[in-house]
């Protein structure tokens, strides 16, 4: 029963990771950029919404203002850094976003100091439903999971139905050809960056509600998000949900063995999935599993 409980908690936690990973996946899908500052942007969102709430605004107002501000930040980021990086080659976006991550973390530290913070949401943080003596489902994790589902579903609908979404998919396929048929690739990139950073901000807000954060919390969030994206398959939104759940379950089940093992188990599951995938690919390509262990290209 205790294991079942851990698995349920892990699935719900997976919703948070999927939400966190959505922006990373979208940016990679549309622009082929892996944004190494993604986790730090989520933490910026957490701090921003925390700060607004601290000024006396309600959670709803803080969230709304904060997310609009994050979308604008995405636009600025795209215009000032990513657009130039994209033009400069495949490695440059990695270099600039990693540099940006360092800048963001330390600016946050400079502004907010070393204190660990969390968003005060009153009873929502503790309320829940007791299913049996050993299974307890919190309202907040369920809320986050539902929001993640809605976000992924909405984004999927947007990409398949909305004109801008279609333009986004066209640009992702081939920006030059998309421009030939009248798509404004630059505008599409701006929209993708705005959506990606805003979803990162939303994930950051949930991070602040369900746990604690500080100025240097970003890299860990980036790694979890990345693991979810890769397990689910790059560019696939529902795959991201599956990947998030895999990481979430691995962490909660690992924590049941030993709290110290929680994060490590998540990483190990990720590495195991990658290993299996590589062996499978090599075995398929060469016909036989022994070939998979060789280093020939």
């Amino acid at each position, binding site marked *: 029963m205790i294991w079942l409980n851990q698995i349920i908690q892990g699935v719900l936690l997976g919703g948070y990771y999927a939400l966190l990973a959505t922006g990373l996946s979208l940016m*990679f899908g549309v622009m082929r*950029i*892996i944004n*190494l500052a993604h986790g730090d942007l989520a933490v910026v969102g957490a701090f921003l919404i925390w700060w607004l709430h601290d000024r006396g605004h309600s959670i709803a107002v803080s969230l709304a203002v904060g997310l609009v501000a994050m979308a604008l930040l995405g636009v600025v980021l795209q215009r000032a*850094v990513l657009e*130039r*990086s994209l033009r*400069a*080659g*495949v*490695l*440059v*976006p*990695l*270099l*600039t976003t*990693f*540099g*940006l*991550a*360092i*800048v963001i*973390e*330390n*600016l946050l*530290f*400079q502004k907010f100091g070393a204190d660990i913070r969390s968003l005060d949401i009153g009873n929502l943080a503790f309320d829940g439903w007791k299913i049996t003596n050993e299974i307890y489902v919190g309202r907040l994790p369920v809320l986050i999971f539902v929001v993640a589902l809605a976000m992924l579903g909405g984004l999927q609908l947007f990409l398949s139905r909305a004109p801008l979404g279609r333009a986004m998919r066209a640009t992702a396929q081939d920006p030059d050809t998309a421009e030939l048929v009248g798509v404004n690739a630059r505008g599409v990139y701006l929209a993708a960056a705005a959506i990606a950073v805003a979803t990162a901000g939303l994930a950051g807000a949930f991070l602040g509600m369900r746990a604690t954060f500080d100025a240097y919390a970003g*890299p860990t969030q*980036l*790694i979890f998000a*990345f*693991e979810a994206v*890769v397990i689910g398959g*790059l560019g696939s939104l529902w795959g991201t949900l599956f990947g998030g759940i895999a990481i979430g379950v691995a962490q909660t089940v690992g924590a049941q063995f030993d709290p*110290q093992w929680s*994060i*490590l188990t998540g*990483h*190990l599951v*990720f*590495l195991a999935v*990658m*290993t299996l995938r*590589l062996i499978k690919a090599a075995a398929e390509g060469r016909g036989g599993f022994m070939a998979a*262990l060789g*280093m*020939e*290209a």
Partner: protein
Amino acid sequence: MSAAQAIKVERWTPVSLLATGTGTVLLGALSLAPLLFGASALDKLTELYVYVILAAMWNALAGYAGLVSVGQQAFFGLGAYAAVQLSNHGLNVYLALALAGLVAGAISLPTSLLVLRLRGGEFAIAMWVVAEVFHLLVNLDHSVGGVTGTSLIALGRYDPTDRRRYTYWLALAAMALMLAAVFLLLRSRLGASMQAIRDDEGAAASVGVRVLRTKLVVFVLAAIGCGAAGAVWLAGQLTFQPNSFFSVQWTAYMLFMTLVGGLGTFEGPIIGAVIFFVVQDQFGQQGVWYLVGLGLTAVLFALLLPRGLWGTLEDRLGVRLLPVGYRVRRLATVGRES
């Protein structure tokens, strides 16, 4: 036209001969530093050598093989960890420090199977995950004190003056060896293969470059170098704390040094390391703003001066101090040029 086709492919030029000779003599002269300089100067130089190694390794990975790793702290930490373990198991502490890089290199072999097939950003973050895994595993190891860490007790038995000198020579030897290894690698056939992979992996494979094998050589070399740097750093610090040795900050430093000095040039990272060393010395106490400045500088260089200080200078002046590439010179340009 027919006469104008005569070309000569050069590796060594008078300038590069002079520069390589001067560099070698300089390394020899630096080995005499313990006889001339005081304790603090030796400590400073040791620190500088660690930076040079790290910058050269990261440059070999990213600048030449196109492998941007944000997890090189994995091998830096593993080098230090290996030195502690070897020493605790009875090996002479300096032998342990010298071998630590090789242990890191050995660990990089199985790691490579997992990460080297990934490209670009996937490789970058996968390395970060790998670094986190090693970090968390070392944190669980109670024999080195877990999260709190431990000190390299065996070093305390040496007289401080001797210890400082030995550490200095260890650092100098490690730097000279790693620079020589990168130099030879770049001059070899593999050097050209690496750059072909960096520029277009698919195209390189199609002309017969063995992509994975080439990447493997650079990857293992960089792991050995970063491991050796970690061991030397440990010898200077005396204490091993996993959180500081496995910190991603080390990769941030490598990025800064390489980008400022010149990604994809041999000399650039060395210059970048010297600049970083001076900046660290002057502004290291400023704490957070200093780190903001480092990150911002790296971003600006990547966007505005992607060849770094040295690469830009090289392009302008057309000189190559160390002959890691090829120069094609037209010989008889009869009637075409005055």
